[in-house]
């Protein structure tokens, strides 16, 4: 049986690929919370969760069940439509960015090649096609995420939430610029916006873009830091600064809606680490089987996120703005110019 000239098993493989990737990201999100508590615990010379199941391994599931069965509370003064909509707006962009990230090489099924990237296909000759503006798509989705937070802050009708939302939007705009400019250095080397091509260009020892020129090296680090700021992780977690704003934009949220914000936060972390891996750290290239390479790199970056969280205190609001506008923005502009000269002089 065939649909549009392709056998059914091909469609099955495509759907299976999407499902596997999605379930894997969901599981990673769930266990990232556990890993974070464990790692930060050990960095503070304590143990972390260890009561739920062996070594506390059932903790994320217990947390999920608890949040699922909690009472839904919508404040009387809140704008109900936006209040319910906000968690969805925060969660969905966090996951759909994954559609364009190539997490492995192609595999063959019934003579057809299936690339391990959700939004991609291979033609008969085996050439892989994906979204040719993949990086722009990721940038677009990353900036969509802030709408959820701003909406949550505004619709809660609470001062803490509103301040959290305001901070989030200001922070997002400041750091998106620097992050975007840092990616420009990648475009200069790759000469393509398609993530598939960006990854295939990074094969071999020291083929990774972060080692390509001294400027991309700095750009990679700045991109990762700016990404941390964009997804509101410590030391840039001002939108939910617990010491000042109770819980920031999610102060008024409870049960599943809160869980969705929480998941969005960790899903964003996974996405950002995956994007950094793809753009700077060679995607699925490396010594292990392709998919494992990708997973290993993403997990190492996630460990770095947690490590950074355990180390640094939160930035003050003016320091945050200063860092974004007066340090990272000029630096990335300089990197672009420097990178252009480097490529013209040494690599052409």
């Amino acid at each position, binding site marked *: 049986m065939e649909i549009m000239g392709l056998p059914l098993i091909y469609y099955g493989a495509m759907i299976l690929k999407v499902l596997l990737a999605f379930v894997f990201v969901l599981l990673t999100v769930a266990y990232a919370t556990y890993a974070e508590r464990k790692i930060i615990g*050990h960095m503070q*010379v304590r*143990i972390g969760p260890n009561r739920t199941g062996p070594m506390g391994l059932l903790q994320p599931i217990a947390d999920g069940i608890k949040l699922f069965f909690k009472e839904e509370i919508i404040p009387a003064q809140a704008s109900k439509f936006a209040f319910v909509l906000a968690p969805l707006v925060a969660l969905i962009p966090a996951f759909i960015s994954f559609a364009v990230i190539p997490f492995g090489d192609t595999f063959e099924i019934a003579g057809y090649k299936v690339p391990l990237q959700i939004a991609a296909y291979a033609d008969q000759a085996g050439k892989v096609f994906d979204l040719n503006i993949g990086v722009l798509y990721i940038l677009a989705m990353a900036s969509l995420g802030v709408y959820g937070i701003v909406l949550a802050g505004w619709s809660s009708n609470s001062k803490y939430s509103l301040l959290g939302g305001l901070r989030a939007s200001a922070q997002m705009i400041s750091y998106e610029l620097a992050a975007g400019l840092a990616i420009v250095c990648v475009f200069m080397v790759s000469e393509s916006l398609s993530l598939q091509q960006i990854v295939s260009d990074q094969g071999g020892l020291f083929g990774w873009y972060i080692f390509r020129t001294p400027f991309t090296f700095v750009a990679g680090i700045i991109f990762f830091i700016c990404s941390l700021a964009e997804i509101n992780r410590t030391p840039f977690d001002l939108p939910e600064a617990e010491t000042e704003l109770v819980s920031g934009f999610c102060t008024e949220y409870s049960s599943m809606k809160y869980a969705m914000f929480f998941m969005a936060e960790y899903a964003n972390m996974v996405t950002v680490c995956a994007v950094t891996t793809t753009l700077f750290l060679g995607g699925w290239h490396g010594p292990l089987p392709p998919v494992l390479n990708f997973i290993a790199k993403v997990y190492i970056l996630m460990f770095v996120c947690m*490590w*950074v969280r355990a*180390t640094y205190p939160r930035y003050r609001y003016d320091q945050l703005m200063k860092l974004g506008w007066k340090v990272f923005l000029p630096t990335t502009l300089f990197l672009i110019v420097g990178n252009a000269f480097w490529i013209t002089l040494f690599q052409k």
Partner: protein
Amino acid sequence: MIAPLIKGLQITLKHLFKKPITLMYPEEKPVVAPNFRGLHTLKVSHDKAKCVACYLCPTVCPAKCITVEAGEDAKHDKFAAKYEIDLLRCIFCGYCVEACPVDALGMTQTFELANYKRSDFVFTKERLLEKK
């Protein structure tokens, strides 16, 4: 500017490999100091409490948690007919032990004193007597 940031990361990474100092409390119990001030005990000598009901401990007690009533035994000696410590009032300062002229009162290393009823926190003479 960047060096101190990296140093901070080094410190946290070093701590990651240290042995956690967490005490798995209900399974592992802490070893308390020898002079730990836990639950009081009435010391026993020749099968009866050493207490002579001199009233120094209720007098010195800053929380006023000790109730003593004297009695007279068969040999016309003074003894504590009633000796009660209300642990809900007690601040575990140990002044009563210091004040005791006959070394009849001591403090044990017991610190798990949780209970269900308020009345269970009033320790009578029978409960305070040293277990041999």
